[in-house]
């Protein structure tokens, strides 16, 4: 497989800016360190040359930005999409959240993103530089000797359990588009399902009590693009700003997971951005797993215009009471 470098992306963006195909480029900007990459908009080739970056920390899913960025746009915006981002891209299109005509999508081959927390766990604090050369990562720190870590050991959870290397939407592709992967992404969910209700309750009570209601999960989620979220709407009856007690903690996450059920593409942004490391993706995956088992395999965003399972039905669907019978069988 060919290695995709940031230069290839810059060249592509330069070409498209110069020939007038696009007027803006949505990509990743380099930060203070090697790992704090920020999503950013580039207007000129100079800006691209100066700040554009692509690598193991270009984790942010850019598709959600298209909702805002295309609003008043004349012409087209170029967006770089990793395979998992393309699913979000399609799902947003399914929900008419932006105008496809205003976007030039370039699919970028993805070899998995690195989780800096995992790097720090191995290499220690005081990271000075992180360099990736294919399979390995070289880390320089303040306190320890330089260290080489296998990239596979520090892949973000969602990348270690990558569901698809396939780009489901693009105008052009950089590198290769792979296949949908038969991943182990439901293993954690299954582990929880096999626990007793008391154990599950304890698990989630512990996890969700960490929530500080910063709303990062919601604000980063490409499925959460509501003009006004129910949790911000004083008339909705559930509006709140703080996890005042254990009920509020659960309410927010149950309703949020429910609202994105059938629409969540499992891009993993919620867990990535959670400052408290709550495994929020497990809630979404539970819904995905259930939907797959109850109503047949469904991958949100696999194709534009597909009907989400919760706005669909068949005459012989499972009864809500049977949900548990199935669970008991599995146990």
């Amino acid at each position, binding site marked *: 497989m060919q290695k995709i470098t940031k230069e290839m992306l810059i060249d592509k963006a330069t070409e498209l800016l110069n020939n007038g195909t696009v007027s803006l480029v949505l990509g990743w900007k380099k930060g203070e360190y090697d790992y704090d990459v920020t999503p950013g908009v580039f207007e000129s080739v100079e800006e691209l040359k100066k700040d554009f970056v692509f690598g193991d920390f270009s984790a942010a899913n850019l598709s959600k930005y298209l909702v805002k960025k295309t609003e008043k746009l004349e012409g087209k915006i170029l967006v770089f999409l990793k395979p998992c981002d393309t699913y979000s891209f399609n799902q947003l299109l399914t929900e008419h959240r932006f105008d496809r005509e205003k976007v030039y999508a370039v699919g970028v081959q993805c070899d998995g993103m690195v989780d800096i927390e995992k790097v720090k766990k191995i290499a220690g604090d005081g990271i000075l530089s992180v360099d990736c050369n294919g399979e390995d990562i070289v880390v320089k720190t303040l306190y320890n000797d330089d260290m080489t870590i296998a990239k596979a050991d520090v892949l973000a959870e969602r990348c270690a359990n990558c569901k698809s290397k396939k780009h489901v939407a693009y105008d052009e592709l950089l590198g290769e588009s792979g296949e949908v992967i038969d991943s182990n992404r439901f293993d954690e969910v299954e582990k929880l399902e096999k626990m007793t209700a008391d154990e599950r309750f304890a698990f*989630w009570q512990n996890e969700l009590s960490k929530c500080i209601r910063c709303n990062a999960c919601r604000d980063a989620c490409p499925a959460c693009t509501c003009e006004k979220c129910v949790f911000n709407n004083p008339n909705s009856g*559930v509006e709140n700003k703080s996890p005042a007690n254990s*009920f509020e903690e659960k309410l927010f996450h*149950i309703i949020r997971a*429910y609202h994105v059920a059938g629409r969540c593409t499992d891009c993993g942004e919620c867990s990535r951005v959670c400052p408290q490391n709550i495994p929020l993706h497990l809630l979404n995956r539970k819904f995905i797993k259930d939907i797959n088992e*109850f109503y047949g395999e469904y991958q949100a965003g696999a194709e534009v215009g597909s009907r989400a399972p919760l706005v669909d039905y068949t*005459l012989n669907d499972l*009864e809500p009471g049977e949900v548990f019978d199935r669970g008991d069988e599995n146990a």
Partner: protein
Amino acid sequence: MQMKEYKPLIVAFCCNWCSYAGADLAGNNRLNYPAEVKIIRVPCSCRVNPMFILRAFQRGADGVIICGCHPGDCHYTSGNYFTRRRMAALFSMLDFLGIEKERTRVEWVSAAEGAKFAATMNDFVEKVVSLGENKRLEDLRCKR
């Protein structure tokens, strides 16, 4: 506070066309069920938002039951099919979070099934009573 016999609080959402009429029929036939069951009339079971269910639990309900027309009999042709999917997903999620699955139920009760309505309520209340007070989805502020 003195010890009182534990009485659960049950909220029943009933669709106007079948289950609410079924509850009326139970009344016509003087079929007993616990007074702890309080019915809220909705046009169709598909009107029941998961937020209503969580709201009820927050406010101190010990069980929530949703009653609609039998599949295929929906007054609005398809409402209860959506209910079926939504509630299956929601209940499974609540179970995943460790909340007792016996506290939530969907039951199809037609306008002719007064007896089924009463029997369902009796059974549901009995199950909820055996679980005791709802502790896993309660909001202590509402119990002050």
